[in-house]
C-alpha cells in the first residue's frame, strides 16, 4: 500500500499559544484511520489544517504532504505540500482529491439551494479541470445522471424527487447522506469526517456509518474519521490515533489499542466509554481509579447492576416488564402502590387545527401513563422528537398538558396556578443538558446555587452554597467565581449543586451527562449516584444514551413517537426487549471491540 498523507512535526498555534504540539502521523491509501480525542485535544484543528481551512489567527508549521498516486506514472509526482499550498492549489484539491463531511448536517447545506443543484455544483466545479478523467464506465453521463446516481448510492429514496427538494425538507440523517454524496462525488483519495454522526440519533447513526464504510471501500478512498466516541470508531476504522492536549498519545491497529492499551489515558478512556465499573465498589471507573482497578478484573456495568439491584433492600426489583399492546392500547407502566409521581393519560399537542383544516397539529405526547415509586431511578430513553422533552416539561409543571394529569405525592400539579406550586418548586428540581446554557453567565456561583432558596438570608445562603460545593467536589473558592471560569464537567457539578440546594425529593435529570466528555461523564455519574443515595432522591433520568440509562437506572421506559412503548427493569428491557423498536434501538448502539466482549 502506498502512502497517501504524511504529517511530520505538525504544530498548530493560536498567537503565542500552541494547541497542537508537533504531531507525526501518516495515512496509507485505502486505510481507514480514526482520530480520537476529547474536547480541546486538537483533533478538529488537525483535520482543518489538512484542508487548509484553519481560521484567522491560527497557524500551522511543520510539514504536511499529500502524496501522488504511485501506481500510475502520470499522478506519481502529484505531491502537494498542504501547508504551503496557495488557495488555487487547494481549490483543485478540495472536493476532488480530498473532501470533508462536517458534524452539523443542519447548517452544512445551503438552505436556499435545491439539494440536486448542490451536489451538481461539486461535480461541475472539478469536471472542468479534469474532463479527461471522467468515470470510464459512463463517459457520456450528464451531470444530472451522476447526481441521481450519487443520491441513489447513498440510499436516498426517490433520488429524482429528492434532487428537487430543499435541505429543510429532509431529515438530519438524509442531509448527512447528501453531504456524504457530495463528498464522494469526485471519488476523493481522502475523506475527512469530523464527528459526522454525533448530531444524529443512534438508529440513524448506524445507517450512516455503514453507508460511509461502504462508500469509502467502493471508491478505494482513505478515511480520516474524527470522533470522541470509541464505539463509533470500532464500526468504521482499521487503525486509531488517540490525541490528548494536542499530542498523540497512542496509535496502532484498533484491535491492539482497544484490547491492550499501553497508555494510562487510553485505558481510562476505554473504561469510561464502556461505563466499566470497579467490581468491588460498584462505582464507575474514572481516570483516577482505572489504574487501581486494573489489577482487579474488569466487569461491564451490567454485572454490577444486576448484583446491586437485587441486593438493595426494598428496591422494587420485581417491577413488571410491560410493552405496548398490538392494538396500540397502552397499560399503566411501572404501577406502584403509593407512587411519588403518577402520570395518567398524558397528552400534549401543539398548534391549532385552524380554519378549514389548514394549520397543523403536532401531537408530541399521545397518552402516556406511568408511576414512579419513592426511591426509584426511572430512566426514559428515546430518540429526538419522541416527546421526552415535552414529557419532562409537563412533569415539572413548566407547561400545561392538553389532557391527562400529573400528580406528585398525590397532589395534582397540572393546571395549577404558580402560587400553588411553591411546595413543588422546593421538592422537585431539574438538571439540564447543556451546562453552558443552564448557568447565567452574569451570576456568581453562590447566587446560582442558592437561586432556589428564596427566603434565606445572605449568611445562610453562603453557608449552604459552600456545603454543596464540597459535596459536589468543588473547592470553596469557587463560590465567588463566574461560570465561564469552569470546565464543562465542573459547570455540570454546579448545576447539580443548584438542584440539591432545597433538599428536594425528586430530581429530574434531562440528558444531564450528554454534553460531557466520556472521562468527565463517569465522574459526574458517580457523583449523581452518591448524591441520590445521600439525599434519598427519586430520580427521573432522561437520555438518548442507552448505556448511560442502563447504568444509572432501575426502571427504564422506552419512548417512541409520543408514547411509551415498553417499560420494565433496565436489564430486562435491554436484554429481552418485548417491543420491536426497543430491539432496534438496542441493536443500533455502536459496540466497542473490547476485551470483555
Amino acid at each position, binding site marked *: 500500500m502506498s502512502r497517501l498523507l504524511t504529517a511530520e512535526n505538525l504544530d498548530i498555534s493560536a498567537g503565542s499559544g500552541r494547541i497542537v504540539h508537533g504531531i507525526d502521523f501518516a495515512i496509507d491509501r485505502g486505510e481507514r484511520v480514526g482520530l480520537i480525542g476529547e474536547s480541546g485535544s486538537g483533533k478538529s484543528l488537525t483535520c482543518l489544517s489538512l484542508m487548509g481551512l484553519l481560521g484567522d489567527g491560527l497557524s500551522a508549521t511543520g510539514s504536511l504532504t499529500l502524496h501522488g498516486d504511485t501506481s500510475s506514472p502520470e499522478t506519481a509526482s502529484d505531491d502537494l505540500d498542504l501547508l504551503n499550498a496557495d488557495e488555487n492549489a487547494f481549490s483543485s484539491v478540495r472536493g476532488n482529491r480530498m473532501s470533508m463531511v462536517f458534524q452539523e448536517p443542519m447548517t452544512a447545506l445551503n438552505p436556499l439551494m435545491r439539494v440536486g443543484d448542490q451536489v451538481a455544483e461539486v461535480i461541475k466545479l472539478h469536471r472542468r479541470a479534469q474532463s479527461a478523467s471522467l468515470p470510464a464506465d459512463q463517459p457520456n453521463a450528464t451531470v444530472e445522471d451522476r447526481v441521481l446516481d450519487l443520491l441513489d448510492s447513498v440510499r436516498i429514496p426517490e433520488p429524482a424527487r429528492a434532487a428537487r427538494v430543499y435541505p429543510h425538507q429532509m431529515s438530519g440523517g438524509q442531509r448527512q447522506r447528501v453531504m456524504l454524496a457530495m463528498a464522494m462525488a469526485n471519488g476523493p483519495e481522502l475523506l475527512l469526517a469530523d464527528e459526522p454522526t454525533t448530531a444524529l440519533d443512534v438508529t440513524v447513526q448506524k445507517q450512516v456509518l455503514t453507508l460511509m464504510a461502504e462508500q469509502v471501500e467502493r471508491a478505494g478512498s482513505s478515511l480520516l474519521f474524527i470522533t470522541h466516541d470509541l464505539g463509533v470508531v470500532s464500526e468504521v476504522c482499521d487503525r486509531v490515533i488517540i490525541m490528548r492536549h494536542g499530542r498523540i498519545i497512542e496509535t496502532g491497529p484498533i484491535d491492539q489499542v482497544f484490547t491492550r492499551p499501553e497508555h494510562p489515558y487510553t485505558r481510562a478512556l476505554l473504561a469510561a466509554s464502556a461505563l466499566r465499573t470497579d467490581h468491588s465498589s460498584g462505582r464507575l471507573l474514572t481516570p483516577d481509579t482505572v489504574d487501581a482497578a486494573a489489577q482487579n478484573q474488569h466487569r461491564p456495568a451490567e454485572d454490577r447492576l444486576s448484583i446491586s439491584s437485587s441486593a438493595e433492600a426494598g428496591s422494587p426489583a420485581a417491577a413488571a416488564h410491560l410493552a405496548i399492546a398490538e392494538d396500540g392500547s397502552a397499560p399503566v407502566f411501572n404501577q406502584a402502590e403509593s407512587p411519588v409521581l403518577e402520570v395518567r393519560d398524558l397528552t400534549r399537542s401543539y398548534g391549532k387545527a385552524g380554519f378549514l383544516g389548514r394549520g397543523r397539529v403536532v401531537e408530541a405526547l399521545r397518552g402516556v401513563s406511568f408511576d414512579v415509586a419513592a426511591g426509584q431511578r426511572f430512566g426514559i430513553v428515546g430518540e429526538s422528537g419522541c416527546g421526552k422533552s415535552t414529557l419532562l416539561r409537563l412533569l415539572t409543571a413548566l407547561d400545561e398538558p392538553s389532557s391527562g394529569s400529573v400528580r406528585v405525592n398525590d397532589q395534582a400539579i397540572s393546571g395549577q396556578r404558580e402560587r400553588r406550586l411553591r411546595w413543588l418548586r422546593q421538592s422537585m428540581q431539574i438538571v439540564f443538558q447543556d451546562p453552558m446554557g443552564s448557568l447565567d453567565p452574569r451570576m456568581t456561583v453562590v447566587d446560582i446555587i442558592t437561586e432556589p432558596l428564596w427566603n434565606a438570608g445572605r449568611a445562610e445562603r453562603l453557608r449552604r452554597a459552600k456545603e454543596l460545593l464540597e459535596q459536589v467536589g468543588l473547592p470553596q473558592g469557587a463560590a465567588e467565581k463566574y461560570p465561564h471560569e469552569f*470546565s464543562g464537567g465542573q459547570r455540570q457539578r454546579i448545576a447539580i449543586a443548584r438542584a440539591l440546594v432545597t433538599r428536594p425529593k425528586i430530581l429530574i435529570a434531562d440528558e444531564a451527562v450528554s454534553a460531557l466528555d466520556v472521562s468527565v461523564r463517569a465522574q459526574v455519574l458517580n457523583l449523581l449516584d452518591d448524591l441520590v443515595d445521600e439525599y434519598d432522591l427519586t430520580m427521573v433520568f432522561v437520555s438518548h444514551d442507552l448505556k448511560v440509562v442502563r447504568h444509572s437506572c432501575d426502571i427504564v421506559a422506552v419512548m417512541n413517537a409520543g408514547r411509551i412503548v415498553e417499560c420494565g427493569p433496565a436489564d430486562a428491557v435491554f436484554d429481552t426487549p418485548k417491543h420491536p423498536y426497543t430491539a432496534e434501538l438496542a441493536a443500533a448502539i455502536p459496540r466497542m471491540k473490547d476485551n470483555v466482549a
Partner: protein
Amino acid sequence: MSTPETASSTTGETPQPAQRPPRRRRAGTGLIIAGGTLVGLVVLMALVSLVWTPQDPTATGATNRLEGPSAEHWLGTDGLGRDIASMVLAGSRVPLLVGLGTVCVGFLIGVPYGIAAALTERGAGLWMMRGNDIAQAFPALLLAIILAAVFGVSTGTAVIALGLGLAPGVARVVRSGTLQVLSRDYALAARAAGRGSIYLALRHVLPNIRGIIIVQATVGFAIAVLAEAALSFLGLGTPPPTPSWGRMLQDAQSVLNIAPLTVLWPGMAVAITVLGFNLLGDGLRDRFDPRMERTR
C-alpha cells in the same frame, strides 16, 4: 459558546480556569475611541460653557453685526451681533440635556414595556407589541409639534415628545433580547426553582441584555440630538434667548447669502456630536451585541 478549554486531566477535574486562546484586540475598540473622543469634546464644551465663554452668548450689538472672525469674536458674529463662538459653546448644553432626558424617558418606558411584553403569556404579549407597532408608526417629530402646540414650546415638552418617540423602538429591541434570555436553560431553571417574573427580569434578563441597552442608548442619544436641532430650527424646541444650535441654523439661514460662515459653525457642531454618538454606538455594538459578532 464553544470556547476551547482544557480537557480535565487524568487526575480529575482540577479547578483551573478554562484556558482561552490569546485574546485578540477586542472588537470595536477603534470606533469606541474615535466616538468617545468626539463625544468627550462636546461634553467638555458644555462644561466649559458653564463657567466661561469668550463673550456673553446672549449679548446683542447693533454695531458689530455679521462681522468676520477676529481676535474679539473668534468665529465672527451673527445677524444680531452675538458672538458665534460663545453661542456654539453654550449651545452644546441643550442638545446634551435633551439627549440625556430623551434617553431616560425612552428607556424608563421602553425597557419595562419590552420585558413585560416578552414575559407575559403569548397572546397578551403579542397584543402589547401590536400596540407598540402603532406607537412606532407615529412620527416623533409630529408628536413633538402637537405637544408644543398644546403645552407650549419648551425644552421639557421636546424631551417628553422625543422620549415617547424613542420608547417603541427600545421596547422592540429589548423584547427580542429578553426572549433570547428566556429561551436559555438558566431562565427555565429559575422558573423551575419557583422564581417569579420580577426576579427573572431583574436578575437574569437585565444583566444579560445590558449590552443591547447601552448600544440602544447611544444610538438614541444621537437621534435625540439631531431631533432637538430640527425642533429648534422649526422654533418648537428651546425658546430664545437660551442659545441652541438648531435656532442658530435658522437665524443663519436668513443671512446665508451675506454671511455663509454663520451656518457652518452650528452645523458642524451638530454633525460632530451626532457622528460621535453614532461611532460610539457602532463600536459598542461590535463589542456587546452578539448578533453583530463577526466570525473571523
